[in-house]
């Protein structure tokens, strides 16, 4: 009797669980599953731009020392994850002396904290823009942990993500499926315990830094 009841419960559960299980947003581009994208300049130039706007000066800077990878689950885009790092000593503002200040102890302290990282924990608010001919494009909000100057804070950033399946055209540039991510967000220096030289934040250096990032990668390692 008990075995009969147990069998009924087991069958019911096995029928009901798939009905209630969450299925995320998927891209219908003729491929499925998880794709590991490794950033590479063969696909496109990986870089970040940063702007500090202060009453006395606007400082524009760039960095091309970007490394990392992320995993896109084509069947569940919400589960996208990965890590992207920026080598602090590749950040430049066009003046060598100012760059050495930027990497110095008062500011980013590159010797102690050589990288700035963004640990992607997932995507929300996904909007599918395009899904045809092996090309998928979405707009979403990336959430994750941003670590700078030894301090980690949870941040969100609106992103545009493109995924392109390998084709004759892509093979001319690099092997594998391609992906491109564009992100734009801002960070507050105070939030990351960056005090700078007394009096400069708010006058010559902005309290918040605007960041624009372009990441290119492929599934080929």
């Amino acid at each position, binding site marked *: 009797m008990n075995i009969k009841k147990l069998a009924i419960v087991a069958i019911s559960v096995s029928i009901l669980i798939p009905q209630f299980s969450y299925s995320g947003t998927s891209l219908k581009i003729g491929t499925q599953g998880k794709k590991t994208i490794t950033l590479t300049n063969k696909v496109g130039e990986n870089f970040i731009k940063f702007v500090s706007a202060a009453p006395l000066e606007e400082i524009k800077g760039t960095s091309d020392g970007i490394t990392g990878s992320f995993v896109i689950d084509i069947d569940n885009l919400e589960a996208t994850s990965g890590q992207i790092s920026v080598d602090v000593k590749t950040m430049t503002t066009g*003046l060598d002396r100012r760059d050495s200040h930027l990497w110095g102890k008062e500011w980013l302290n590159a010797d102690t904290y050589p990288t700035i990282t963004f640990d992607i924990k997932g995507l929300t608010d996904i909007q599918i823009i395009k899904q045809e001919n092996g090309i998928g494009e979405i707009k979403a909000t990336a959430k994750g942990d941003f670590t700078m100057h030894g301090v980690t804070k949870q941040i969100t950033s609106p992103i545009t993500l493109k995924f392109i399946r390998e084709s004759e055209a*892509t093979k001319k540039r690099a092997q594998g499926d391609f992906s491109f991510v564009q992100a734009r967000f801002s960070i507050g220096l105070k939030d990351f315990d960056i005090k700078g030289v007394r009096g400069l934040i708010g006058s010559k250096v902005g309290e918040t830094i605007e960041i624009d990032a372009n990441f290119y990668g492929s599934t080929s390692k």
Partner: protein
Amino acid sequence: MKWKLISIIALILMLPLFAIWLKQGKNIYTKDKKQVITKVKDEIFGTETDKIEWVDEFQLGLLPGVDNLSPKLLLSVAVPSGILICVSILGFYMNYRQKRFLSK
């Protein structure tokens, strides 16, 4: 008359400095590199992204570029303009004194 002329010349000499400063982007500090952004079209991704390069280009600022100690960066609008303003004020004052002396 000679002092008045010196004052006017000093004021006129300031104008090209300010014209260069306005033309070169109204920078607060003198700089020796410029960020050049060019738009790059990517055929595969169908996107237009920025390509950023730093090129050597002197840009006269209102104040000396304190971030670098090169002599070029010490040039600024404020320093020569300040000297010219002082010369101009001195010229007008000397002209005033000369006029008072002659009228006596």
